[in-house]
């Protein structure tokens, strides 16, 4: 649900990074924060536990420049990945415009990825969204680790509808901006489609 402000000529969109615990959602945002020019970003807020696990959300506002005289701003959020924080995840999905699913490529995490994706679908459905109709991008993270599942296998399980997907090593920035650009593009394209309809 984009927020279009004609008074200030701004479009604000909300993108949520979803995925199982320790898959690298916060790492994605940290990399974006580190590599974005100061004038294009706000402060990154992390509501985390003392052990640096996300407790409620991370938040990073980005300004991408202007389209047709409208400033485009993207608010990036992560959800807490750990299973028991489901109530918080539901809250963060409110008003979402686009979702990035960060998958952990390690073979041992295949089930956790699938569980998290099902959880995403369920939580979206509760709020009347259908994942297939939302701008959606999948990131296969941690491609530098040993014992990882082949991308083809992950794609079949996590992205059967062939949304844009990227291999990534978020800790080194690989694939991070590709993922962000893909979801931002998809959100803006959806906005155009909605406007034309």
């Amino acid at each position, binding site marked *: 649900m984009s*927020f*279009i*402000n*004609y*008074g200030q000529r701004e*479009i604000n969109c909300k993108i949520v990074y979803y995925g199982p615990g320790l898959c690298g959602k916060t790492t994605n945002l940290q990399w974006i924060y580190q590599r974005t020019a100061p004038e294009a970003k706000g402060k990154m807020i992390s509501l985390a536990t003392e052990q640096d696990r996300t407790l*409620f959300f991370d*938040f990073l506002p980005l300004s991408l420049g202007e389209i047709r005289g409208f400033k485009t701003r993207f608010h990036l959020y992560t959800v807490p990945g750990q299973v028991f924080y489901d*109530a918080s995840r539901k809250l963060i999905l409110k008003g979402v415009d686009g979702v990035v699913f960060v998958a952990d490529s390690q073979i041992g995490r295949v089930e956790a990825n699938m569980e998290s994706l099902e959880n995403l679908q369920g939580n979206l459905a509760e709020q009347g969204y259908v994942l297939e109709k939302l701008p959606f991008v999948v990131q296969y993270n941690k491609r530098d680790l040993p014992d990882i599942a082949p991308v083809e296998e992950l794609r079949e399980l996590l992205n059967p509808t062939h949304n844009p997907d990227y291999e990534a090593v978020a800790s080194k920035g690989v694939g991070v901006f590709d993922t962000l650009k893909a979801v931002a593009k998809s959100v803006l394209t959806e*906005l155009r489609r909605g406007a034309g309809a």
Partner: protein
Amino acid sequence: MNVVMYEDELNQIQVVVDKLVRDANARVVCIVDKNGQLIAASGETENLDTTSLASLIAGTIAAMGGMAKLLKENEFPTQFHEGVKANIHIQLVGNRVILAVIFDSRATLGLVRLRVKRASDELNTIFEALAKRIPSGTGVEPFAEITDEDIDNLFND
């Protein structure tokens, strides 16, 4: 479904928040939508990260809403947090937007509550009018004109 804000309504909202800053002796007044977008702010905002503040205010309202649901309550529409130098009063207005007032020892909670009540009524009227305007308004037509090139250009740095 997008949230659309027009210049007329934005100006009316700004008048209400400017007045609330004065009437309540507040430091800052913010209007935030429930998804965390800042709609308007007034007062001593120069050195305040209002964007982050807006997302956190929406986060607390969302968390309290979640708690209310678990307790079979409809909402907890009002929150007050007292600090050493600053206090914050957060009010859900018409279940649509959030009105946050940050104040210090120049104001009292009683005064803030009184002024917030009046401002909430005014805001409710504005947002009701806005909600009715959307279906008949011009919608988001400027974006129908966006080209692939416009979108690509955002990323050409």
